[in-house]
């Protein structure tokens, strides 16, 4: 049985439905991320798990128990807030001791537990400092120490790294992964940053407008998006929409608008005439100056209309005869060359049938 079950939870604010009939099952010990753009309902859902808000419909069940009658202070979940929410009038020790005091831990045991918690977040010796004397990353770690000190069943993290600069954020991401592995507590993580979600999570739930679009491991979310929204939200993606023109042995030919026939592997039950979208990641396209010497499943010619030099890769946007711009990229792995093509170059793009993923309408 899953550790946390969210069953048909809905939350409305007047006319606006923030969370729409969401059902999820989160397993013990996993790093589970709620990913989506602002306003998709992920934070609202998190707050309902924490107890700061109550669902209008549905149940939230933790360890077999419906949480609806439990106020936040009685739930065995701890939250790490985006703003850290450290008590400014208490020292680091005071902050970390607070949950222990609220749980009526005997005062003789408290100092040891505080020391252990600070050690876990590598902040030994910072006990006597006040929050305003700490850097962003240090405050973050104190918040985590405070949340973990009573060994809660689950840790909820609300975009905890959003306020940190890029370098620090990367470091903290690695620390979070290691911490979660060491401590073994279930993490429910909220973010709008899809790279972060892909890097940190065991599983991701992609949310949009209050609904869950897909729940899967990161690689499956990336490689096999179940909806156009997911394909588009995660990373960069070419989206070729059109109708199914034919279906032979699991290889479907889609008449993509503005491009032409595209062949892709799909579940065999697709009938002709059905509508859908092919999601094709730029890195899966082979882009060359001359025509391919083999017979690729898909082959298109075009002119480089734009290019974006990103340092490690260069993204090429190629204009095709049909009008669609196809995005492809190449790693800048040859020293001395920043890019392989220039704007205006004629290029040949090709990819196999299993490079793309067909999303039915």
């Amino acid at each position, binding site marked *: 049985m899953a550790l946390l079950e969210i069953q048909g939870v809905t939350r409305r604010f007047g006319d606006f439905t923030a969370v729409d009939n969401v059902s999820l099952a989160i397993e013990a010990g996993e790093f589970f991320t709620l990913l989506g753009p602002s306003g998709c309902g992920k934070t609202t859902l998190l707050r309902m798990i924490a107890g700061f808000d109550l669902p209008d419909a549905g149940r939230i069940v933790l360890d077999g128990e419906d949480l609806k009658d439990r106020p936040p202070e009685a739930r065995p979940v701890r*939250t790490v807030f985006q*703003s850290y*929410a450290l008590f400014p009038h208490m020292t680091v020790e005071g902050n970390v001791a607070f949950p222990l005091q*609220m749980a009526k831990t005997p005062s003789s045991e408290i100092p040891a537990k505080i020391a252990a918690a600070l050690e876990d977040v590598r902040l030994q010796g910072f006990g006597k400092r006040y929050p305003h004397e700490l850097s962003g990353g240090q405050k973050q770690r104190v918040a985590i120490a405070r949340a973990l000190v009573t060994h809660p069943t689950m840790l909820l993290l609300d975009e905890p790294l959003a306020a940190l600069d890029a370098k620090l954020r990367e470091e903290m991401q690695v620390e979070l992964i290691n911490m979660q592995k060491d401590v073994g507590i279930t993490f429910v993580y909220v973010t709008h940053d899809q790279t972060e979600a892909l890097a940190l999570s065991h599983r991701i739930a992609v949310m949009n407008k209050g609904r869950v679009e897909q729940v899967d491991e990161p690689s499956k979310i990336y490689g096999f998006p179940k909806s156009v929204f997911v394909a588009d939200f995660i990373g960069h993606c070419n989206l070729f929409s059109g109708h199914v023109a034919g279906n032979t042995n699991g290889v479907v030919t889609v008449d993509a608008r503005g491009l032409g026939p595209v062949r892709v592997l799909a579940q065999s039950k697709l009938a002709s005439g059905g509508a859908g979208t092919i999601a094709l990641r730029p890195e899966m396209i082979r882009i060359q100056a001359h025509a391919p010497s083999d017979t690729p499943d898909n082959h298109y010619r075009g002119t480089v209309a734009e290019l974006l030099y990103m340092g490690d890769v260069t993204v090429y946007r190629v204009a095709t005869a049909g009008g669609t711009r196809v995005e492809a990229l190449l790693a800048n792995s040859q020293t001395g060359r920043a890019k392989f093509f220039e704007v205006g170059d004629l290029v040949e793009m090709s990819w196999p049938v299993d490079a793309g993923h067909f999303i039915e309408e």
Partner: protein
Amino acid sequence: MRNRRPWLWTAALVAYAFLYVPLIIVVVYSFNNSRLNAEWVGFTLDWYRQLFSDADMLAAAVNSLIIGLTASVVSTILGTMAGVAMYRHKTRLLPILVLTPIAIPEILMGVSLLIFFVLVSFTLGLVSVALAHITFCIGFVAIVVRARLAGMDESLTEAARDCGATPWNAFRYVTLPLIMPGVIAGALMAFTLSIDDFVITFFTAGAGTVTLPLAIYSMIKIAVTPEVNAVSTLLMLLTLVLIVVASRLSPNLFRSD
């Protein structure tokens, strides 16, 4: 980068002088060896001596202190509750009841409370005055507390609850310590307002009860001696100290008007 505008500075200085000269005159004449507040004769502390041996005046001072302390304590408690209520919860009636006493002319409250007390056969005296003072002090405390809460990070209360604190514990260990300077400033303000109040006290004190302002009033109307100056000076000194302390505790005390 200061624009030197002589006329602006002059006008402003005139305004400051206008504000302070009358008060300075009162203080100066309290040391004047003359019955008349007309011209300086010589330095004396006689008026202060007379003040401290004036039994009626001392009784009035004691009354004012008792009422002031009571009104301050009760209105601080109720006013803090009201401030928290107005900030955290959606109420429509409470803000109106809390803020209107401050907005309307004082005489209206004095008069309506007079009718009220007489109709319910409540004897006018120290208690009626204290009850009246609490009524208008609540608003001041509530405003200060609410402003202080607005400056506080809301997520701190949630974090406290998340850490296992009941709503009361969250208030006691997190919210209250953080708004305490505002609460104390409000209490000092309430005390000052109560000590200094004239109009409402005038209507609700009844025949036998005299507070300092009422005593000053009868002295002004009946027989003016520089004893009035002496008591005024002492009262001003007390107020000065209280308000300076209050403004140190709650730096934007007077900004959020």
